[in-house]
């Protein structure tokens, strides 16, 4: 493990590398040749309007969807078409916070958080419970929520539990799917702070998708903008206001007028 680490650092193999990733559903082209490299420990945020393929991109990297063409490499290993045990091994590096938290409503909160430990890593239930409660503490939740059912929690608390579940297995890569959607501005900022802290503590590589610019500015090292299936702008967060790209300008200022025309029709 340490050998590969040194090797990777020496050669600067990107943690995640996408080359020419294309995906279409029937006649609708969602990803049209996406190229992106994410370095170890970097936090990249992909911005873009609704329905521009942000979620499809994340799901393609996770292997839930298979791209029509192009390659996806994780730690230099081509994972585009792997399946079965290889896929599970690759997925063990990941943690993900879903947009709606996607907590398992049949399980209590602590089992949700400990799920990856118990099912994926074979940790005993007693130890997993202790680690889950410790992780809940790290996202600011007290141990007494551990036995509640997810449906008894507020939206902000569900997001925290979702975050705890994503980081409980100490993943190398964490995905955040619209982490602040549906939260009030203060709770959104609390979640942003937690994300920054957790990613820093774990030393993890983070890839987030959002259309919340406040969130993007806070958690990103680099921002990439997805429009019509292509990354039309990639750059450090400090340059987002001087991108010189009219599409980016329109998006970050939230103007109705500009080069981006809202798609009214589905196709």
């Amino acid at each position, binding site marked *: 493990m340490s050998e590969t680490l040194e090797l990777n650092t020496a050669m600067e193999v990107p943690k995640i590398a996408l080359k020419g990733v294309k995906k279409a559903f029937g006649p609708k082209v969602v990803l049209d040749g996406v190229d992106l490299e994410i370095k170890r420990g970097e936090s990249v945020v992909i911005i873009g309007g609704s329905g521009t393929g942000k979620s499809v991109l994340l799901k393609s990297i996770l292997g839930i969807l298979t791209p029509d063409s192009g390659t996806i490499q994780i730690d230099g290993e081509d994972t585009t078409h792997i399946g079965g045990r290889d896929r599970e091994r690759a997925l063990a590096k990941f943690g*993900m916070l*879903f947009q709606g938290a996607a*907590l398992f409503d049949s399980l209590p909160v602590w089992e949700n958080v400990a799920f990856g430990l118990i099912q994926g890593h074979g940790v005993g239930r007693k130890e997993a419970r202790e680690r889950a409660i410790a992780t809940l503490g790290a996202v600011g939740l007290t141990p007494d929520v551990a036995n509640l059912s997810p449906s008894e929690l507020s939206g902000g608390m569900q997001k925290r539990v979702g975050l705890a579940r994503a980081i409980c297995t100490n993943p190398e890569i964490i995905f955040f799917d619209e982490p602040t959607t549906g939260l009030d501005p203060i709770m959104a900022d609390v979640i942003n702070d937690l994300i920054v802290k957790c990613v820093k503590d774990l030393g993890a590589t983070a890839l987030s998708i959002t259309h919340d610019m406040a969130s993007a500015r806070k958690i990103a090292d680099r921002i990439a903008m997805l429009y019509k299936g292509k990354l039309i702008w990639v750059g450090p967060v400090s340059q987002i206001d001087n991108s010189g790209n009219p599409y980016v300008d329109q998006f970050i200022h939230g103007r109705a007028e500009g080069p981006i025309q809202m798609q009214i029709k589905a196709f």
Partner: protein
Amino acid sequence: MQFLRAIGRATLTFLEATGRLALFTLTALSHCVRPPFYFRHIGRQMVEIGYYSLPVVGLTAVFTGMVLALQSYSGFSRFSAESAIATVVVLSITRELGPVLAGLMVAGRIGAAMAAELGTMRVTEQVDALTTLSTNPFKYLVVPRLLAGTTMLPLLVLVADIIGVFGGYLVSVYRLGFNPSSYINNTWHYLEFMDVVSGLVKAGAFGFVISLMGCYHGYNSRGGAQGVGAATTNAVVSSSILILVLNYLLTGIFFS
């Protein structure tokens, strides 16, 4: 041209659906024999399908047995064949009505619940969340339901057989004035091992189909509440129809 196009489109849709279902079935079956196994979930599903379906299946069986006794009495008494009632009841229940009625009741109860649960998990991204937590959704969600359905339905039908025969006995003895011991004697005398076994094999097949349809429609549901509703309806309708078709095919294999 329009007409031909409609036929072609319907055929293609049908073939596509059949292919998808076949792939789903094969994937599920291949995961049935490969570890890891989630025994806790298999147990939970067995209790859910077997134990909690007992009241519904039992009630169905007892009334079916009672009606059979009444009906065959009114028919058979026309040519003085009342002694055949016990045999008619036990053969109808074990060979046909036990498995089919239990299957249809369980399809409504369990098939719908499976489709709704998996469908909701799908549309709230819980299925994707399983994948990201290194857990195969087929192994975790589909396999326990398939195994529990296939093993528990025969047990349910065995209980239903006994309750159904008992229902016939109650009506015959207390309402129609039959001699209890000769009724029980007649029940046993003409009953063959194969009658019961064929019913149980049918039940196993029905249990598999109910779970498969519930999981397939739930797992592939799309588009929020409406999609889950459609998945539930499709699961119940398709498993009910498949039960009736399979029943005919299996009867043909067993008794021709």
